[in-house]
C-alpha cells in the first residue's frame, strides 16, 4: 500500500511539473526515460560497466591525485587498493542502486534540457498527461529496482518483475521500516517541546528562504 502511495505521489508531482512546463519538455522527458529503460533492459551489462566505471573513477581520482601530487609519491599500490575497495553500484546480477541512479541522471539531464529556450513550453493538459506517464515509468522502475514495491508494476522492455523475489529486495536489511522508525521518533523519542521547536524552525527557515532567496522575486518584484 505504501509503495502505491509513493508511486501516486511521484506521478502527481510529475503531472504538475508536466502541466507547468508544457508538452515539449514532457515529450523530451518521455523519450529520455523510455530510452533509459530500453538501454537498461537491452544493454544492461554495458550500462552496468559504464556506471561502475564512473563510480570507480569518482572514488579513485582523489587517491590518484594525492599519489601523483607527492603525498606518497609513486605509491601506485594505494591507487590499486582504492580501486579494489570500491563496491560496484551494479552487481553482477543487476541489483544495486546503479541502474536507478543512471535513470535518474538521464531524467535530470532531460529536465534541464526542457528549460532551454527552444524547448520551453506553455502550461498544457497534454503536458499534464505526459507528466503522469513519465512519473509512472520513473516511479515504477525505481520502486521495482529498489525492491520497495509489494506488487508487480507493469514496465516496458521486460523490466517488470516481482520485486519481493529480486536480489535487491533480499539485500535490504530486515527490521522496522522507514515509517516505523519515523513514527517511533515522533511518538516516543522526541518530546512535544522538541517537536514544536523543530516545526517552528522549519517554518521560519522556509519563510526566510522563500522571501530572501527566491531569485524570481528579486527580478520581477
Amino acid at each position, binding site marked *: 500500500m505504501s509503495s502505491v502511495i509513493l508511486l501516486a505521489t511521484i506521478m502527481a508531482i510529475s503531472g504538475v511539473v508536466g502541466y507547468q512546463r508544457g508538452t515539449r519538455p514532457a515529450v523530451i522527458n518521455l523519450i529520455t526515460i523510455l530510452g533509459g529503460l530500453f538501454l537498461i533492459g537491452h544493454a544492461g551489462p554495458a550500462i552496468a560497466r559504464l556506471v561502475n566505471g564512473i563510480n570507480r573513477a569518482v572514488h579513485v581520482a582523489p587517491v590518484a591525485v594525492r599519489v601523483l601530487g607527492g603525498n606518497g609519491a609513486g605509491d601506485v599500490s594505494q591507487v590499486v587498493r582504492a580501486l579494489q575497495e570500491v563496491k560496484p553500484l551494479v552487481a553482477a546480477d543487476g541489483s544495486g542502486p546503479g541502474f536507478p541512479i543512471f535513470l535518474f541522471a538521464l531524467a535530470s539531464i532531460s529536465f534541464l534540457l526542457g528549460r532551454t529556450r527552444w524547448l520551453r513550453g506553455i502550461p498544457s493538459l497534454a503536458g499534464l498527461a505526459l507528466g503522469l506517464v513519465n512519473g509512472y515509468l520513473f516511479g515504477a522502475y525505481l520502486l521495482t529496482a529498489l525492491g520497495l514495491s509489494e506488487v508487480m508494476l507493469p514496465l516496458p522492455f521486460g523490466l517488470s518483475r516481482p520485486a519481493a523475489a529480486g536480489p535487491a529486495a533480499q539485500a535490504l536489511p530486515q527490521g522496522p521500516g522507514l515509517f516505523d522508525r519515523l513514527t517511533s521518533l515522533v511518538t516516543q523519542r522526541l518530546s512535544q517541546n522538541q517537536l514544536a521547536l523543530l516545526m517552528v524552525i522549519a517554518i521560519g527557515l522556509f519563510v526566510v528562504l522563500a522571501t530572501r532567496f527566491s531569485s524570481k*522575486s528579486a527580478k520581477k518584484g
Partner: protein
Amino acid sequence: MGPIELVFLSIMALFGVIGIVRGYARELGVTIVLLAGLLVLVFLETELTGYLNQGLAAIAGESVTQQATTKALLFAAFLTGIMFISYQGETLAFPAKGKSFIFSLGSGLLNGYLYAGSLWYYLGSANWPYMTISQPYSQFYQFAWRLLPPNILTWPYLMGLVLFMLIMRVIK
C-alpha cells in the same frame, strides 16, 4: 492509512496545488492570517479555559459531549471563515511577485497543514461529531496526530511565528 487521513492529506494536497497557482507571495499572506487565527484559538483554549467553558455551557448546555461538539464546530467555522477572508483579500500578501514552483507548492502545503491539520485536531478531539469514525485509529493517524498544529504549537510559539512573519513581510 484510513479514509480520514486520506481526506485530510487530500485537502493539504489541494492547498499545495492552490499555492502553485497563486504563488508563494500571496500564500504567505494567508499563512500569517492562519497562524494568527490559530493563536487566538490556542490561547482561548489554554489560557482562558474558564471563560470558554462558561460560553460553551451557555450555548450547548451542561452536556460535556455537546460542549465538545459545539467547541469543535465553532473553532472549525472560525478557521474556515478567516481562511476564506484571507484567500479573498491580498492585504498581507508579501511584496514579491514571483511564482517559484517549489516555494509556491511549499507555502500552499504549509497553509494546508495549518488549516486541515487544525480541523483534524479539533474535530478529532470532539470524537468526530456527526461522523461514524471511531477508534482504534491507524498507526499513521497516531503519528500525524502528534504533529497537528494545535497539538504541537503552543501560543508562545504561534505568537513568535506571527511576529516573525510580520517582520519578514515589512523589511525589504
